[in-house]
């Protein structure tokens, strides 16, 4: 295993190293580490043929490696790859990586690092918010304790992709910095009564929309002026139906209705 180029990522970032290896028409493996994670980029006659970083492969792995600003790199000559996950010219890869890095600069102006922790914002300004499934996947893992890097690992996305999703969610106003105290959340949680009906409602809604369910129940009851301790079947049905309409995915909405219909049937 012959090693001929090495250095610190603080001085030379991944795109520059790719350029140097490409200009020299070298073949081999570029190994990079930022301390906690590692990645590899494989070259054949100066062309990038494969890249891997954590669970990511291909160009996405290069985007991930390109944002590392600390750590080290080493190039191992003539270590070929059996895999080919990249079929792009180096110039195109570098141009796309530059675009990606520009986006990341914008994101880091709002999110300091992947170690940042966010929690749900209980007071949402917009009446209606539409989420893409990948945004939902990330949002469902937010618990006010996990960092972006932790969540990236859970959902199986790259850290920079997950940061991008967090950026959008923060801009939408659905998340807030977990370090900022929000006493409204605690108050609302305490205010949800511990009745069999509410517990069942919480359980069924959490299964359909995730941990945000208690807030949605409290918010919907407030909107409809419903007393959560009321025995009125009309009020319960109204609450369930309104909640079901707030579940964006039809299948999940029906699942929720299905689970809650039993409650009402036993009382009618």
């Amino acid at each position: 295993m012959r090693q001929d180029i090495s250095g610190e990522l603080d001085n030379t970032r991944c795109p520059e190293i790719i350029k140097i290896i490409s200009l020299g028409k070298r073949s081999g493996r570029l190994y990079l580490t930022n301390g906690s994670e590692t990645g590899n980029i494989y070259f054949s006659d100066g062309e990038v043929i494969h890249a891997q970083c954590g669970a990511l492969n291909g160009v996405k792995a290069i985007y991930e490696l390109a944002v590392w600003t600390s750590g080290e790199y080493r190039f191992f000559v003539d270590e070929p790859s059996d895999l080919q996950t990249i079929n792009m010219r180096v110039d195109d890869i570098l141009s796309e990586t530059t675009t990606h890095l520009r986006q990341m600069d914008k994101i880091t102006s709002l999110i300091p690092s992947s170690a940042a922790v966010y929690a749900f914002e209980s007071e949402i300004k917009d009446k209606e918010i539409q989420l893409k499934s990948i945004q939902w996947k990330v949002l469902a893992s937010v618990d006010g304790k996990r960092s972006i890097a932790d969540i990236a690992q859970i959902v199986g996305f790259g850290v920079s992709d997950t940061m991008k999703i967090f950026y959008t969610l923060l801009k939408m106003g659905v998340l807030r910095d977990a370090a900022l105290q929000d006493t409204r959340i605690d108050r609302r949680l305490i205010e949800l009564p511990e009745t069999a009906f509410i517990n069942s409602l919480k359980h069924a809604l959490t299964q359909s929309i995730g941990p945000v369910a208690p807030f949605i129940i409290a918010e919907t009851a407030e909107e409809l002026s419903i007393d959560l301790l009321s025995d009125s079947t009309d009020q319960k049905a109204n609450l369930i139906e309104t909640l079901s309409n707030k579940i964006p995915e039809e299948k999940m909405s029906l699942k929720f209705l299905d689970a809650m219909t039993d409650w009402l049937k036993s009382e009618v």
Partner: protein
Amino acid sequence: MKGSIKDLLQISGVHGYIIAQGKSMQVKLPSKHTFSGAKDRLWLLYKDLTEGHHRPGNTLEILLDDMLLTVFLAESTMLLVMSSLRVNQALLRMTGKLIIANMNKEKK
């Protein structure tokens, strides 16, 4: 998934229902009901709702003087429920949504 016609008929205030699908129509109403002999008018309603331009949502409520017609649509299937005005409307809508979803699932 639960949600059957039996559940629907158990809701207090429900008179009966009509299911229309393609060229068939099933009417289950008490014989003296205002709509029991109104198949032609119901066909017109079905055609208007299913063949007309696309409308948002899949539940319609038609309020008559002494009756509520709740219509559930899924592609070419229509479930129309006749009930009194004092029916638990939310429960009726919930049950109707489950039934129409089941019917559509079975059709597929």
